[in-house]
């Protein structure tokens, strides 16, 4: 093999299955790259919070053939540090492994490394991490997006063949867009959340972060399924298949004005317009669709997600795991000081926001209303999908921004999620694929489909990917 690191994950799996490549050699090659990045600290990309101590022993033939997997720190991995990017979980070694990580390991994707992220997945730039910020491999002065920024930067830079991320309001799709790779948020409920450290349980969903659409399909095929440990998980209605489509003849693509015009940077709009033109050349029909409540999605999301976060993060109290503030004189001050010392500024903001929105006198005005807006948003999508097969938007309003550019203004940071949050609230699947460059940096195209339409969605994304011929090579380190 001339350059094993240039292989996509699916191609590497095939080479291993054919006996032309050794899984151990591939693992060792990625491990040494991941170690080099970790040892470089912030002089590198700072993608990893932990790297495997050794190469796994040879295993019998399995579908994923031993192609190593990077996993966001948010997933619990038995005996391996899992801190969700937070100081408050310092030293935590989970006694069990998340169902999806276990399923993938069983299918032949062993754990290569854990990836850096925004603390508890709260952020859009991976600057809110106890491990320090992650850098964008296209431009080290810029953010990789977030919250799965470590996974996205690692895949884009060729430090991992593929990775697991999680998406609550865009945390897979937006970093995939900003790093020029593929990220898929599956239908809510299709992948078990058991062992995924909770942020906003009605929205959180694990998904693949990969170099191309085919790799995303291959990884997803081994992620979906009902898990008795997650009562919201659902048996995926069909087998996930590898996409082959090269044309989009007769496919109806809906473009919502609400998510593709105001607030979208001109360079992103240009790349989006040329992506739509390519889609039409492939035989697709372009239609205008309305998502009238989508402009309110961000407001509803920034009530609902913090509300769920304030409840989920109540468990970090210094009693059972992680760190504890020392020298507290009584139980209550032990709780409050542990949370003061252990949570970073963005997590504190969301806990406060959520607690406020749920507090007596404000519940109906904020949480109650936001849940009703969510119903309207889901209805908008259902109505749109009666007219079109897929909805297309830019994934993020801008290209990757500078480190520190938005950390002082939470609202400006939240606006990064403008195009991705509506699909999260509706629970529908959406994929981001790179569709071009603006100022030399990647632009993502978001394609959303109805619940459980992943196979069709991946086919359409594959056809577009073939047509775009996006070159991710400049990001490889």
């Amino acid at each position, binding site marked *: 093999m001339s350059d094993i690191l240039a292989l996509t994950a699916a191609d590497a799996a095939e080479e291993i299955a054919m006996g032309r490549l050794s899984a151990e050699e591939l693992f060792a090659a990625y491990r040494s790259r991941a170690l080099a990045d970790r040892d470089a600290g912030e002089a590198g990309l700072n993608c990893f919070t932990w790297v495997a101590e050794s190469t796994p022993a040879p295993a019998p033939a399995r579908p994923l053939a031993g192609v190593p997997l990077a996993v966001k720190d948010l997933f619990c991995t038995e005996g391996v540090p899992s801190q969700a990017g937070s100081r408050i979980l310092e030293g935590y070694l989970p006694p069990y492994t998340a169902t999806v990580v276990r399923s993938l390991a069983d299918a032949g994707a062993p754990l290569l490394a854990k990836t850096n992220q925004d603390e508890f997945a709260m952020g859009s730039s991976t600057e809110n991490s106890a491990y320090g910020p992650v850098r964008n491999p296209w431009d080290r002065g810029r953010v990789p997006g977030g919250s799965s920024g470590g996974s996205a930067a690692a895949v884009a830079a060729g430090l991992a063949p593929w990775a697991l991320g999680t998406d609550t309001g865009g945390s897979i799709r937006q970093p995939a867009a900003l790093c020029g790779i593929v990220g898929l948020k599956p239908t809510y409920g299709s992948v078990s959340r058991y062992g995924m450290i909770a942020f906003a349980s009605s929205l959180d969903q694990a998904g693949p972060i990969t170099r191309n659409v085919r790799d995303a399909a291959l990884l997803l095929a081994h992620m979906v399924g009902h898990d008795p440990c997650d009562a919201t998980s659902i048996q995926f209605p069909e087998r996930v298949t590898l996409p082959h489509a090269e044309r989009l003849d007769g496919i109806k693509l809906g473009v919502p004005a609400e998510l593709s015009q105001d607030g979208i940077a001109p360079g992103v709009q240009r790349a989006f317009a040329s992506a739509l033109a390519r889609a039409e050349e492939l035989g697709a029909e372009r239609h205008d669709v309305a998502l009238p409540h989508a402009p309110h999605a961000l407001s509803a999301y920034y009530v609902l997600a913090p509300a769920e976060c304030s409840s989920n993060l109540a468990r970090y109290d210094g009693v059972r795991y992680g760190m504890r503030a020392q020298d507290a004189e*009584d*139980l209550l001050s032990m709780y409050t000081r542990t949370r003061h010392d252990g949570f970073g500024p963005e997590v*504190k903001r969301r*806990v406060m926001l959520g607690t*406020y929105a749920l*507090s007596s006198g404000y519940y109906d005005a904020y949480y109650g209303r936001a849940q009703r807006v969510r119903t309207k948003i889901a209805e908008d999508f259902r109505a749109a999908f009666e007219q079109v097969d897929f909805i297309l938007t830019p994934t993020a309003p801008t290209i990757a921004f500078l480190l520190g550019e938005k950390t002082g203004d939470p609202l400006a940071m939240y606006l990064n999620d403008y195009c991705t949050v509506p699909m999260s609230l509706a629970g529908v699947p959406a994929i981001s694929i790179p569709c071009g460059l603006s100022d030399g940096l990647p632009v993502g195209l978001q394609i959303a489909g109805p619940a459980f339409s992943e196979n069709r969605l991946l086919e359409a994304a594959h056809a577009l990917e073939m047509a775009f011929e996006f070159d991710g090579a400049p990001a490889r380190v």
Partner: protein
Amino acid sequence: MIGRDEVLHVARLARLELGEDEIEPMARELSAVLDHVAKIAELDLSGVPPTSHVVEVTGALRADEPRPCLEREVVLSQAPAVSDEGFLVPSPQA
């Protein structure tokens, strides 16, 4: 506009100590976000049911049968302080 007293009240509810230097920025940032999200007050939502689940799940209940769980030592091994067979915490009253 959220004031200092309101910030401290919510922090108490959230069991979160805030440093003196964190209170004013928190008041300002919460106010900015709440002003933005207040736009949903303009929508007519009468008769609209709140979302409970985005994807319909049926039959999520299982039989209530005892099953093995994590061993006590395994669980206690992650705690900052333990005593005999339980988690050790400071006294509720100093």
